[in-house]
């Protein structure tokens, strides 16, 4: 009863749980133009899911699994084509690639090219968002219980939290559910103590779960952007954040009836919702907060899309960041991979893979 009264007061005043506030992008997250100035490695529409297996680098482009040769980056090799868009992929270090598709299928591709269905031994997934090999098992993040990965925007705007984390045994053992009630989990990596670390995108945080299952604990919360995938990098990690949070979106998210009407009546590309690309269509409402001076969109304008790559230390604290701001175009950073001091970054919104030097920690430069 007291909790309900408290919530009602919070909603009335805009405080507590109903506060429409965002953490500042400062300190390690201070904006710069590093992503915007990064070298283009390859232009590939829908480039996503970068993964590294020894010397080999893989990525996805729509429904195609590609291999990237850094000596000839402009000519990637097509490894396989699937019946649906690739939502996530991972490698085991011995040549096997696990691929999660937008239709819910999770399949394993052996070094000899043979494909087997991993979901044949587990529950029926509808939304695989992250995969990870570890201790003879395949860990799967199931992003949403209602929608496939490509319908992420709707899942966010409905404020769903039907995600779960699973441990599949390719040897045929029973699947094990490690965590439920997750708000769009993705970006699985192994933590320093062997725990599973992943992003809970709709709750703007990184969390961990013991590999054997257990309570979810927050490692880094209150992020100013929606976190996507994580990648191991020496003594730390990289975090790709695919869209910014802004107060307008937070406000729309808090207005449930308005949000429901928007979902019902308007095409998703024109929603007031996070986006992967800076679509400057006049039909899109308030892109860049409609802030223009002398016809120029300002870098600090509140935008629906953004490019952000964050360097984390071993304790998952941000230490540096690379940005493409509101006036940039390399938005929708969904994945990255560390290659000995160089980071390949997939900007899905811009359809590009770019390269940044990781040994120059940036706390930002004057915009």
């Amino acid at each position, binding site marked *: 009863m007291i909790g309900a009264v408290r919530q009602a007061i919070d909603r009335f*005043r*805009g*405080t*507590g749980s109903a*506060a*429409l*506030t*965002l*953490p*500042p992008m*400062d*300190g*390690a997250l*201070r904006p710069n133009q590093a992503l915007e100035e990064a070298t283009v490695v390859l232009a590939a529409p829908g480039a996503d899911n970068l993964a590294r297996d020894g010397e080999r680098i893989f990525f996805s482009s729509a429904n195609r699994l590609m291999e990237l040769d850094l000596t000839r980056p402009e000519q990637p090799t097509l490894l396989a084509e699937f019946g649906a868009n690739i939502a996530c992929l991972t490698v085991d270090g011995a040549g096997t690639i696990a691929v999660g598709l937008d239709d819910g299928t999770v399949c394993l591709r052996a070094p000899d090219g043979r494909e087997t269905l991993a979901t044949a031994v587990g529950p029926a997934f509808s939304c695989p968002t992250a995969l990870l090999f570890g201790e003879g098992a395949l860990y799967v993040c199931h992003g949403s219980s209602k929608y496939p990965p490509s319908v992420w925007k709707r899942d966010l705007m409905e404020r769903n939290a039907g995600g779960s984390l699973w441990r599949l045994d390719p040897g045929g053992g029973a699947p094990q559910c490690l965590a439920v009630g997750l708000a769009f989990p993705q970006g699985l990596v192994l933590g320093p103590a062997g725990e599973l670390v992943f992003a809970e995108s709709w709750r703007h945080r990184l969390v961990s779960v013991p590999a054997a299952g257990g309570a979810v604990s927050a490692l880094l*919360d*209150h992020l100013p952007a929606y976190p996507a995938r994580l990648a191991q990098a020496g003594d730390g990690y990289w975090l790709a954040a695919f869209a910014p949070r802004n*107060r307008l979106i937070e406000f729309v998210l808090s207005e449930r009836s308005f949000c429901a009407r928007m979902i019902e009546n308007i095409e998703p590309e024109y929603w007031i919702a996070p986006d992967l690309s800076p679509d400057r269509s006049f039909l899109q409402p308030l892109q860049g907060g409609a802030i223009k001076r002398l016809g120029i969109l300002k870098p600090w304008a509140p935008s629906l899309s953004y490019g952000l790559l964050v360097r984390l230390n071993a304790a998952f*604290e941000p230490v540096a960041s690379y940005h493409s701001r509101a006036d940039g175009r390399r938005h929708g950073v969904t994945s990255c991979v560390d290659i000995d001091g160089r980071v390949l970054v997939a900007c899905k919104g811009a359809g590009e893979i770019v390269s940044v030097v990781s040994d120059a920690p940036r*706390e*930002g*430069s*004057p915009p």
Partner: protein
Amino acid sequence: MTTLLEMRGITKAYRGVPAIRDIDFTLKAGEVHALLGENGAGKSTLTKIMAGAVQPTRGTMLLNGRVTSFPTPASALQSGIAMVFQETSLVPSMTVAQNIYLGEERLLNRLRGIYISAQQFLQSLNFPVDPSATVASLGAAKKQMVEIARAVRRNARVIVFDEPTATLTPEEKQHFMTLVKRLKRQGTAVLFITHALEEALEIADRITILRDGEHVATGSVAEFDRDKIIRAMVGRTLSGELYHRRDGSQVRPRGRRILSVQDLTMGAMVRNNSFSVYEGQITGIFGLVGSGRSETARIVAGVIKRDFFHGGEVRLDGRPVLYKVPAPAVRDGIVYVTEDRKVEGIFESMSIADSIFAGALAKGLNTGGIVVRMSEAAELAKAWSDRLNIRTINANGPAVELSGGNQQKVVIAKSLVQKPRLIIFDEPTRGVDVGAIGEIHQLINGIADEGLPVVVISSYLPEIMNLSDRILVSRQGRIVEEFTPGEATEENIMYAAVH
């Protein structure tokens, strides 16, 4: 230029302790004369004697060659000597216009007439002050403007300014400088006390330096440079120590985020302000007067309240906090060292020991519960006086008798005694002499070196650039830019602050 005012062998002693000794001083018509010295050097005492606020113990004063004395400020004013005091002498409950015309009221006053003529007069001085506003509602800079306007209006032959620019923004300072030049052209003698040496070198015709109540040097401005002035003021070279620029290698590493201010809003003064403060670093906040820096700090410390609806959030150690009064903020370890130390920082009539012990009482650190042991207070005060080098003639005397620098140290001691988690310094060296500035800077650096998060709010760019590990620039109620010491220049900070 003819000598307008001459002081010979002026001595003033308080309880037998001389504040100034055998000072000889001359002021010529149409000159701008800068009076410099550390706090406690006797500058204010000398000027108060000129303006009739204090009577000399010994010595003579000549106005236009005739021996004179001013038993009251009114008599000095009648003789054409007006003083703009460091502590504003305005009536807070009256309007700006009423204060400007204070003492000149007729039997029947038409308020509208006073407002119109005050408006015209303030506009002629380029001072953007609303004549119908009550003085209590004005900020420090605008109060200072009203003080200056009042003195100028009386067509005084001698105008004494005690730290006139300490609270003014750079733009307002330019207006002030223009005004001084205009007064000079009219033949008015201007004497001003300042701690900003650049201002003295820029505008003064002659400079007089006092040290420890004694006259040290007088000469034309061409005879002085910054180092020479500082040497004369403190007896040693300090310039290089005080305001050197930091480079990137001197920046302290960033620790955990302790304070996160998110979309904080308070009326028109603070608008969606967001920034973080990290452990082990000094976060400098620069901004012009009215940019909402102090108000933000005061909301964080619970001194004032944010907007009732959608006022934003303050997170301390990741936990949302909402302080309606300062007491819970103090309990949580947030300490705010005010910019207005005389009004909010110290109890003027209380002793140093009592003032410092008040800090411990506020945090509930009194070991005796509801019983206050005076010996404990005295020991605490002694320890902090030694640590912060608080210099005083009489340890049991009231804090008001201390110089500005030592008063500031008492305010800082009162704050540090609370063992803070976060300390916010608002204009920590305003009205403080160069010797004490060095000590206060050292103290602030020491606090950050111990790993505490420190916020320094200052309108003085060299201070911000010398102290800060991160420089935030505030404009129109929000933080608009962040610089590292390596990339910060006076030009780009100022550009961010005004554009």
